[in-house]
């Protein structure tokens, strides 16, 4: 069987029905294989970076694994930002890059780039396969590595002659990787120690990060928090792991979290960190926790425990399994006073500045959006003010998901990731929330969206500037602005229309609801541009 066909067949058997990519000289055999295998759909993007983001959105929406591919050289290097984005957020992904013929490697031939070397530091693992007979093993290892332990992207670089080679093949082999054996079961002794500390706690908190979602442990987290009466605080990546309408939900921590959330967590005497790497952003440069608090840190990646904080009970393993064990052994804690104290500190909603009738408040727009969307809708935010406003003004209740580039902070993520999400979860409502900066990074993906015909809403907040950077210039450079105001912004509605999308411009809060209704009623993609008061910042 031809190696290219084996690869596409392997995707099929792994349940990957859609692959995002861009063809070129070195990966053409894969496109011939895709042509022949009708069980795997290929989505042609406009820039390879978008293929990686789309695979990211696909993986997160369907809670499995995403796949993307590109040709050698510039195709591969264009993927890089998307691969690094997936790596920072621990998204399981397979990336296949074409490479120049194996006998030409190292000779600086046309479209040659060392993508394995380039992505060494932001793939979970990567391969350059020079021998066709290695392909079945490498594929089996790649799927296994990407999806087990702490998930992450795995890249396989394959020279064109290897893609065309023929080898005997029936199924992917069983594999054993001597140096890779992730711990999943939590250590029984540590679980006991943690429970002892927890039972003595007066002001316990669960600090829930993106690991809860990666481990598919949202149900277990809810069961544990409810059984123990412990309030839950989220990081940005953890949003959606705990229903915000629960009386136990506090808010979001971190640089752009709520001040009251930081106040509450600093008062906690026991913190259970569940699947968070305690990043600088989530912990306000590592200052969030009280030094007196007992800390239990659960993570599948042992290197995340003790990387930032040392004073803790480490628990390495799969959150889903560990939380199940904790639920079995927990007795409800007496936290009534603590919860009352929290209720007093916690206000209801962020303040909104008074808006005149000529602009839209993105905060109000998101609250209206929330009222109209299903309980399992997927909101894909970009990076910047839109990301923070969407984190703080859209309640993630039920099975709603919040997708964003939390770790790398990649502008341009939202539109292609949302397109990917529509393929990953075709029955769910998907909304891309994006600013006028982010959308311009990969605006041509409107073409990919149109081509998909998928029902999806783009909600663009246009303030004619790079609002978040400008906020930083406010606070860090005495409002001396530079390079943050566009001297020219295009007519986004016209652009959307040029891509064949129905589009509407909204200039007041009163019109937002109607536009959303129209988008929800459309049977394909729909584009809404909200003209935002440029002075409205994330927190004011």
């Amino acid at each position, binding site marked *: 069987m031809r190696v290219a066909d084996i690869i596409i067949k392997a995707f099929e058997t792994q349940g990957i029905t859609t692959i995002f990519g861009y063809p070129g000289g070195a990966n053409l055999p894969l496109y011939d294989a895709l042509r022949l295998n009708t069980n795997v759909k290929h989505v042609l993007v406009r820039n390879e970076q978008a293929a990686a983001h789309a695979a990211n959105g696909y993986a997160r929406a369907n809670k499995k694994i995403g796949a993307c591919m590109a040709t050698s050289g510039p195709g591969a290097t264009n993927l890089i930002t998307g691969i690094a984005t997936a790596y920072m957020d621990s998204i399981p992904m397979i990336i296949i890059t074409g490479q120049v013929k194996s006998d030409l490697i190292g000779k600086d031939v046309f479209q040659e780039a060392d993508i394995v070397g380039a992505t060494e*530091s932001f793939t979970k693992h990567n391969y350059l396969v020079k021998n066709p007979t290695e392909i079945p093993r490498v594929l089996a290892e790649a799927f296994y590595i990407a999806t087990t332990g702490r998930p992450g992207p795995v890249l396989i670089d394959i020279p064109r002659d290897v893609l065309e080679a023929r080898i005997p093949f029936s199924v992917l082999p069983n594999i054993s990787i001597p140096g890779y054996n992730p711990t999943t079961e939590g250590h029984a002794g540590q679980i006991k120690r943690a429970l002892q500390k927890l039972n003595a706690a007066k002001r316990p908190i669960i600090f829930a990060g993106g690991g809860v979602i990666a481990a598919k442990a949202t149900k277990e987290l809810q069961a544990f928090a409810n059984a123990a009466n412990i309030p839950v605080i989220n990081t940005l990546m953890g949003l959606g792991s705990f229903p915000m309408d629960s009386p136990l939900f506090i808010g979001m921590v971190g640089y752009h979290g709520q001040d009251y959330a930081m106040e509450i967590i600093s008062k906690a005497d026991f913190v259970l960190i569940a699947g968070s790497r305690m990043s600088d952003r989530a912990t306000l440069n590592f200052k969030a926790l009280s030094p007196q608090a007992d800390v239990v840190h659960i993570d599948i990646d042992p*290197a995340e425990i*003790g990387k930032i904080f040392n004073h803790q009970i480490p628990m390495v393993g799969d959150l889903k399994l560990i939380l199940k064990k904790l639920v079995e052994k927990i007795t409800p804690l007496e936290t009534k006073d603590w919860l009352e104290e929290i209720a007093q500190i916690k206000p209801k909603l962020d303040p909104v500045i008074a808006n005149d009738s000529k602009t839209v408040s993105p905060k109000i727009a998101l609250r209206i959006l929330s009222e109209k969307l299903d309980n399992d809708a997927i909101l894909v935010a970009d990076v910047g003010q839109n990301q923070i406003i969407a984190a703080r003004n859209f309640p993630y209740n039920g099975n709603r998901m919040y997708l964003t580039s939390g770790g790398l902070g990649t502008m341009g993520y939202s539109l292609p990731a949302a397109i990917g999400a529509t393929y990953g979860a075709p029955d769910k409502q998907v909304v891309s929330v994006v600013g006028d900066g982010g959308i311009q990074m990969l605006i041509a993906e409107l073409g990919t969206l149109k081509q998909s015909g998928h029902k999806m809403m783009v909600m663009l907040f246009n303030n004619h500037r790079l609002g978040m950077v400008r906020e930083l210039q406010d606070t860090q450079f005495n409002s001396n602005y530079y390079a943050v105001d566009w001297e020219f912004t295009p007519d986004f509605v016209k652009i959307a229309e040029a891509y064949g999308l129905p589009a509407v411009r909204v200039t007041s809060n009163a019109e937002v609801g109607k536009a959303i209704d129209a988008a929800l009623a459309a049977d394909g993609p729909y584009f809404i541009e909200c003209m935002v008061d440029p002075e409205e910042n994330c927190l004011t």
Partner: protein
Amino acid sequence: MVVQKRFISLLVENNAGVLSRIAGLFTRRGYNIESLTVGETENPRISRMTIVMTCDSATFEQIKKQLNKLIEVIKITELKNDNALMRELILIKLKANDNDRSKLIEISNIFRAKIIDVTMSTMTIELTGDEIKVSGFLEMMRPFGIVELIRTGFCGIERG
């Protein structure tokens, strides 16, 4: 926290690129490698590395954990003076005129070093030993004038 010299022995898969991954990890996370030796083991699919670094204990823990995350790293062992044997090979080319030649031979004999090349103006000596022996030897030889020095870095093996 105590900053000190630490030694680890690393079993890795003998694949192309594995050295780059390990060296890259140290660079990228700001850890300093003092020396690194690598060679095949009795199993040609597995290599053993000995890495020497100076760091505090928390950094050392992180380094070990980060190395463990690399798929091709099979096993990490810390080598300590009381549980391991450490050796380094050095080649040293010294200025050696008629007056100094016999002194150099004498010192070399004491350290059980081997003279491997002699010219009218230089002498090249080979020495194998642990850290104390190598530094002691270098201290004795330095006054004669070192023309060139090459050290392999330490390689180590656990006792027993």
